[in-house]
């Protein structure tokens, strides 16, 4: 009898441990909202390595990229994450938009094709996520089809969501507008570029992990 209880307890503890051992967190959002900059910051702080390259040219991330076993310590608690950085989701991809960044026509067309593939891949990965951090540019209008579609689908799939209002260092940044757009979700304002307000971000991230 004691053995049965002991095994049962071990299983419960093990399942709890596993649940917290490799939490799959997806970073989703429109292009150029700072997903990779934030994912890089986290990975650099806790593993010493970055996850991908960043650029001013939209759709720099065109493949899903991830970092396994990112162990994060916050206020004495330790959680291990699989950080999944995804290509920016958009409704329209036009190679001509890349030409003004100095890309040659063929490079721009290739980028457009890869970005389209990337969006399809991002959406496919969604079902594997335990929770999602939606990274939005707080200086942009939050009422876009992309933002509403992403968040609406996460709700439908019952995936816990944290909304990050990135780029709070910009003059046009407006967190309140973002909070008003998504009142049911926790919104945390940060600047991934300046590493500002990251304590509050980790606080929110750990709260998000509890919802899984």
């Amino acid at each position, binding site marked *: 009898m004691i053995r049965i209880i002991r095994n049962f307890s071990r299983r419960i503890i093990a399942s709890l441990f596993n649940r917290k051992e490799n939490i799959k967190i997806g970073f989703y959002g429109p292009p150029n909202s700072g997903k990779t900059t934030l994912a890089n910051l986290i990975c650099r702080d806790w593993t010493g390595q970055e996850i991908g390259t960043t650029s001013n040219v939209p759709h720099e991330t065109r493949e899903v990229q991830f970092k396994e076993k990112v162990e994060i310590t916050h206020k004495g608690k330790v959680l291990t994450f699989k950080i999944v950085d995804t290509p920016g*989701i958009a409704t329209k991809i036009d*190679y*001509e938009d890349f030409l003004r960044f100095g890309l040659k026509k063929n490079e*721009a067309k290739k980028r457009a*094709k890869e970005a389209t593939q990337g*969006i*399809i891949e991002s959406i496919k990965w969604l079902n594997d996520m335990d929770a999602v951090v939606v990274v939005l540019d707080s200086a942009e209008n939050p009422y876009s089809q992309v933002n509403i*579609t*992403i968040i609406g*689908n996460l709700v439908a799939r019952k995936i816990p969501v944290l909304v990050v209002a990135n780029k709070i260092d910009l003059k046009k940044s407006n967190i309140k507008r973002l909070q008003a757009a998504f009142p049911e979700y926790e919104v945390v304002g940060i600047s991934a570029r300046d590493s500002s307000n990251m304590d509050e971000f980790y606080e929110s991230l750990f709260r998000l992990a509890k919802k899984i």
Partner: protein
Amino acid sequence: MPYRCVHCSKLYEDASKEVLTGCANCGRKFFFYIKKEKLAMMENSSQKNEPELELDEEERKKIEADVREIAGITNEETPIFLDFESVKVIKEGKYLLDLPKLFSGKPQVYQLEDGRYIVDLSFIKSDDKD
């Protein structure tokens, strides 16, 4: 549903063998679905033989290559049928994505039977000029 060859615009009735063996006109295996009503309308109109897609052959070839790459079906012997309009290829390098459809969870590639697929993509007419 009837088919239309992307390359030469030849129309085929539903279940035509050419959609599997290759277009009788140009031999390609790259088609898109059109609605029966549209086919009837086209057959009754004077535009019957006019190509709908304002793309030259080089652009069509490039688009087919891109779509095959995006869909992961690079074997040109495998017929592709475009449908569902979740990803519209306006022309090379220009795409429109219907996010609600993509998020709906339907697979982008449907395998009907061995060697026969439906790909969740669609072409639309483009007025863009390069």
